[in-house]
């Protein structure tokens, strides 16, 4: 710690007598100089010797008796604390486990479509409250037990009986009335009311089918997917090993290692240094130029489910007024913000939907950038003398960077924001939990999450019965077309009311080493799906 040490340097004594001066001459004795030089050379040689790969390393790979293991190494920034997604909401858990280790009845593909997985097909009753799934007879768990109707029913009943289930899952589970096995391959799931969202929810953590024989899954896995958890070196990596008895198309790799980096720059250095095959999602778009050499790297650009939202607390007196919220929206040049903060990577959205959602429309110009109109609106609302707001953001790169731009653009229309940066946990308890904020910035990473705006107790406190009705009607609509059209209206309602300010939708930036193919362009689910990835 240089600064600590420097404090003690003040009393350095200065040269006083000539003895030292005279003595210096003899230091030039050639023999002694050489001795120091040769010592230095020896040290350097030792250091360099340590750097060269030992010959045995390449020897092992060439020997025919030990065939080379196919290993894929994926870099990521957030490490899962546990391997149990039912009691911990961290998105880093399904990133590794969903589809790779645990399978669901249906899965969502890269375009956002629902596809068969454990269920070969399914039927929906006319009133959309009864789903019959026909399971693939080949499906079996890594333990060898079949994934049959009884296992599916056991999973749903296990979740229903679990009092410590995460809030998100409890909320998603609530719509399910009952599950029953017709025969070994047929399951009927009854809903309390029609729901557009629930099948989609079943393609994620809620629908992960766990081997009913499994016990505690926080450190090991019991799924039916092409890989199984082989190890978790805490602070470093999670290793998946190929499930040799996988019922479907077998995994292409003997081992897949997810390596975790506290510092995104270290992750970038690892890919540049040839130690990684893939960066699962680049955390800092300004690092992109490092990977511009197309003979060595491929950059895949797509979308995620993440909306970066400038949250407006509707309980703050000024922000309860829709005109003030519109004025704030008009004050912020979102195009400029995206290019300044996120290198223009990402999509401008104007409401709580991302381009892969079936009801997505470009609403980014619903309330266009217009600082003059913003000032006029603020004046009308009685804030011509200014408005003071607390902008409390979590310390995450996109939020702290965006806060600076938001601050300066709000100041231009006479709104004075004070920026406070909170570590994420404190942000969760104070902003999200207690609603102690006026403005905040956070990415909502969950899929199809506009329903949050229908809950007046959620931290945004958006109490808009018109929206809530539209959303409920959309979720419970009789046909999918009707549902989508109602959902579009709901999104437009949010945009018209400026319920929040949508800054941009997070891009999916995957960097791969040359030769790695099959990475999904869009992150439509929380899974880092390995099924199409190949090294060739």
């Amino acid at each position, binding site marked *: 710690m240089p600064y600590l040490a*420097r404090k003690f340097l003040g009393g350095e004594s200065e040269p006083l007598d000539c003895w*030292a001066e005279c003595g210096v001459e003899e230091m030039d004795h050639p023999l002694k100089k050489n001795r120091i030089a040769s010592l230095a050379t020896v040290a350097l040689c030792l250091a360099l010797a340590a750097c060269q790969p030992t010959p045995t390393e390449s020897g092992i790979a060439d020997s025919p008796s030990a065939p080379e293991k196919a290993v894929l190494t994926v870099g990521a920034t957030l490490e899962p604390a546990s391997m149990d997604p039912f009691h911990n909401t961290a998105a880093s858990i399904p990133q590794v486990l969903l589809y790779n280790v645990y399978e669901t009845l249906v899965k969502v593909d890269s375009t956002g479509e629902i596809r068969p997985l454990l269920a070969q097909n399914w039927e929906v009753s006319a009133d959309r409250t009864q789903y019959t799934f026909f399971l693939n007879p080949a499906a079996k768990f890594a333990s060898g037990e079949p994934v049959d109707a009884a296992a599916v029913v056991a999973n749903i009943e296990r979740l229903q009986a679990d009092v410590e289930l*995460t809030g998100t899952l409890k909320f998603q589970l609530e719509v399910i009335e009952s599950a029953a096995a017709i025969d070994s391959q047929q399951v009927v799931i009854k809903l309390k009311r029609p729901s557009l969202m629930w099948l989609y929810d079943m393609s994620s953590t809620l629908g992960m089918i766990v081997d009913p024989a499994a016990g505690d899954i926080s450190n090991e896995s019991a799924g039916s997917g092409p890989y199984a958890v082989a190890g978790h070196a805490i602070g470093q990596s999670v290793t998946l090993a190929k499930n040799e008895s996988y019922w479907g198309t077998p995994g292409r790799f003997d081992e897949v290692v997810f390596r975790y980096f506290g510092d995104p720059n270290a992750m970038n*250095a690892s890919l540049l240094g040839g*130690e990684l095959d893939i960066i699962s999602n680049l955390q800092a778009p300004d690092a992109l130029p490092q990977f511009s050499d197309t003979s060595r790297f491929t950059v895949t650009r797509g979308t995620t489910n993440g909306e970066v939202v400038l949250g407006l607390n509707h309980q703050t007196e000024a922000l309860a007024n829709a005109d003030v919220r519109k004025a704030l929206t008009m004050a912020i040049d979102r195009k400029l913000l995206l290019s300044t903060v996120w290198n223009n990577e990402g999509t401008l959205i104007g409401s709580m939907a991302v381009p892969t959602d079936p009801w997505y429309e470009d609403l980014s110009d619903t309330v266009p950038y217009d600082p003059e109109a913003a000032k006029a609106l603020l004046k009308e609302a009685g804030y011509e003398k200014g408005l003071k707001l607390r902008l409390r953001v979590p310390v995450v790169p996109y939020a702290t960077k965006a806060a600076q731009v938001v601050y300066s653009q709000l100041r231009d229309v006479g709104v004075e924001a004070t920026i406070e940066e909170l570590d994420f*946990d404190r942000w969760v308890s104070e902003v999200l939990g207690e609603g102690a904020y006026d403005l905040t910035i956070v990415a909502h990473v969950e899929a199809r999450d506009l329903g949050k705006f229908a809950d007046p107790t959620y931290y945004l406190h958006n109490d808009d019965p018109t929206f809530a009705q539209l959303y409920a009607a959309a979720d419970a609509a009789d046909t999918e077309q009707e549902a989508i059209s109602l959902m579009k209206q709901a999104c437009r309602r949010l945009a018209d009311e400026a319920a929040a300010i949508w800054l941009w939708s997070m891009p999916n930036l995957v960097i791969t080493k040359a030769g790695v193919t099959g990475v999904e362009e869009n992150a439509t689910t929380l899974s880092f799906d390995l099924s199409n990835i190949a090294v060739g």
Partner: protein
Amino acid sequence: MAAAARKLGVFALSLLLASVLIFAVLNALPGSVAHTILGVDATPEAVAALEARLGLDRPWPVRYVEWMAGMLTGDFGTSPLNGHSVLELIGPGIPVTAWLVGLGIIGSILIALPLGMVAALRRRSWEGVAISAAAELGMAVPVFWGGIILALVFAIELRWLPPNGYVPFTTDAGEWLRHMVLPVGTLALVQAAVLTRYVRSAFIEVLTQDYYRTARALGWTPLRALFRHGVRNAAMSLVTVVGLQLSASLVGAIVVERVFNLHGLGSILIDNVFQRDIAVVQATVMLLVLAVLVINLVVDLSYGLIDPRQRGRR
């Protein structure tokens, strides 16, 4: 041995005080591990229920006594995040930090001692000035920047060494060495810059002393006089500085750990502070306090070894 008993008493009292302080500060932190586990959608009721199950709702004196009693019996608790025992979580970080900091300090001494002596002896000629200037520059270089540059040159451009990561010594000694060169080098260079200045001033001090002049008058060469009489005298202040640097770099190595993605004690500490995994943070800080106290004790004892005059006094 009254002196030894007194030292031991001070040692134990320091540990006890530290434990109270650590416990009080960490429990005053806003936020809770229940939020981390339950995520952003947790209802206040769910958080309260989980806190109750984890025993976090009980009064703090009860939890403190329980924590202390556990530690005395070797039970550092369990992480509520993943059910691993705290020792299991911290254990792998201990060798990483120990190697990094230990080798870093040894490296910095090996660099700073000769450079500092030359800088002292030749402080009026260009070599001395150059060394002082280089040390000055080295102190100004931020650790993370130095680490990134070293990684850029030796790992990314030249591809001699891995850019980051750690392989335990027992798994593969060769790979362990390859992975340690850059982080240890970074830490050693940065600390050597600071240490060089101390060595220089300590030896300049020696050069002004009567015993040195007498030795020179007897016809000894400056180097012989320095090694015979100077090193031992300079060592007194240098041991203090090295002790301080060692203590500071136990946590200070966090920057190097981040740059080179090493899962040492510093990284464990930071990660778990953010996750509010208080059990792990408490145990890690206690371990670091213990290490610092042991270092201080060793420094204290080494005075007696270096300087016989100190022995009677303590």
